């Protein structure tokens, strides 16, 4: 190995620094451990939630057979000997709400995302986007009241022929939930659309494609994974939404097809929300019921997310 001569000024090679660290780099390790801890926290919380759900759920299924729970069509827990634990009515009610809300949120959210990403002048976007996001931040209680006090009378006035017997209706609640998640759908989809490389758009425009065609044929397929993610997030929000349905959808446990929009229903979350009050005794069957329903909710959203991820992998157009 050639040793450098001492007359090489400033080269630093004459006093070669050792390659091994002079001091163990504790700082780096502490920072890394701290960051890992933060990242791990959400995993730990998820596991903790699952564990806390499992024990009471097992207690529940020791008293109620799982087939009766999943396929029974009458839901009236908490009535002692007369109780029945068929969860279907609340599941159907939840799906009714989800269907109506997606019917509202997906078209409005996607179209506004197209507008903001492809059509709007930057100056317009700078004003409209924050306003949309404010809508996403309104407390759900306020949205529930808005549904009950404003949307419900408005719906009765616009569609009088539907027969509005109850002041509660899952249609109105579903529309309110839908409006609530519009910002989520539009914001996440718009981010996905805007991250489509400009070159792809220019390529299509240069072929004489109209804005509409560029949006639908180039931007949409390239952004599909983000758009599906947006819809999945919105669905999860709608499934889990409690306050709006508690206020505007009523508490009548019945199986209602999605077209009977004027009917009152009780969703899974509304059941949990109205039953989990302070005076409920732990260890009772009613107490365990809450957790059984909670577990089912968790399983539903989890399997939906997995399905969505699978769909995204299959259909997305990958660009480099």
């Amino acid at each position: 190995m050639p040793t450098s001569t001492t007359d090489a000024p400033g080269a630093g090679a004459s006093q070669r620094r050792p390659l091994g660290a002079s001091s163990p780099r504790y700082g780096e390790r502490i920072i890394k451990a701290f960051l890992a801890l933060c990242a791990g926290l959400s995993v730990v919380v998820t596991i903790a939630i699952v564990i806390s759900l499992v024990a009471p759920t097992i207690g529940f299924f020791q008293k109620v057979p799982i087939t009766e729970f999943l396929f029974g069509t009458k839901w009236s827990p908490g009535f002692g000997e007369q109780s029945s634990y068929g969860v279907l009515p609340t599941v159907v009610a939840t799906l009714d709400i989800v269907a109506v809300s997606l019917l509202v949120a997906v078209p409005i959210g996607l179209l506004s995302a197209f507008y903001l990403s492809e059509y709007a002048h930057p100056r317009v976007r700078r004003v409209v986007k924050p306003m949309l996001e404010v809508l996403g931040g309104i407390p759900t209680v306020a949205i529930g009241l808005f549904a009950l006090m404003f949307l419900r009378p408005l719906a009765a006035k616009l569609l009088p022929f539907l027969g509005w017997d109850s002041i509660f209706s899952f249609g109105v609640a579903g529309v309110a939930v839908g409006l609530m998640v519009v910002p989520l759908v539009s914001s996440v989809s718009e981010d996905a659309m805007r991250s489509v490389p400009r070159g792809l758009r220019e390529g299509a425009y240069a072929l004489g494609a109209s804005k509409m065609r560029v949006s639908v044929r180039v931007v949409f397929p390239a952004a599909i994974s983000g758009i599906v993610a947006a819809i999945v997030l919105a669905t999860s929000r709608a499934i889990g939404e409690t306050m709006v349905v508690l206020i505007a959808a009523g508490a009548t446990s019945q199986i209602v097809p999605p077209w009977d929009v004027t009917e009152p229903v009780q969703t899974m979350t509304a059941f949990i929300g109205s039953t989990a009050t302070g005076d409920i005794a732990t260890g009772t069957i009613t107490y365990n019921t809450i957790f059984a329903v909670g577990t089912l909710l968790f399983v539903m959203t989890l399997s939906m997310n997995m399905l969505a991820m699978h769909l995204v992998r299959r259909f997305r157009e990958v660009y480099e």
Partner: protein
Amino acid sequence: MDESGAPAIQVDPSELHTHGHIEHSKKVFELNKVSVYYGDSKAVSDVSLDIYHRNITALIGPSGCGKSTLLRSLNRMNDLIPGARVEGEVFYHESNLYDRKVNPVQVRKLIGMVFQKPNPFPKSIYENVAFGPKSLGMKDDMDDIVEQALRDAALWDEVKDRLHTNAYGMSGGQQQRLCIARAIATQPEVILMDEPCSALDPVSTGKIEDLMLELKRNYSIVIVTHNMQQAARVSDMTALLMVELDSDEHNRWGEVIEYDDTNKIFTNPRDPRTDQYVSGRIG
């Protein structure tokens, strides 16, 4: 050329692409005092020149001289950039492209474009080529249109067995030829090329240059290039743009300082700056 010493880069006159006498009778574009602005700043100033039918016209010049901007004003691609504005007149045959009544979407159907970075859609090779004709609602058999475009782009033999595979599985040079096939599938009259070879290796570059000379029989081509040898090899006419500064050196914009037969630009330019630029001494 004067006696100011040997140029740093010697362009062999035999390498210059000539077809004897160049036909200059038929114009495709006639630019009349065209200036392009981005917001308040001027990017290209006061360009007046004619672009000829079934010629290859090269726009050369140093970085930032506005040659791409000028090119994009020929099919109204600058409309897509918020704040971009064109002054002056760009006549395409008899009609001013910047007339109020002109629809930019229609303009781009007649004047195609190929970009610096190959930008195929993340779809199959077939769908990439069919995209334009479908936009136009072309009635002919789509398989024939696709095959013809790929043949014209000298790509058919390489891809005929995998037309329905994703275009991103191709090499960069193939992707760029696919972009050319995509552009000619709509049967435009003009193809604009914005540094089409700058992301490619020399072999792919050679193929694209051969292709351009082939396409010249049916299309008018305007090419922006960084590469002076490329301009010398393929183009019939060359415009040299240079960056100009205003007196307090605050604003800079591009101007065409010379526009002539490529032969003359490279061997006997009028402007001494052209001589210095093409010989590699400035820019």
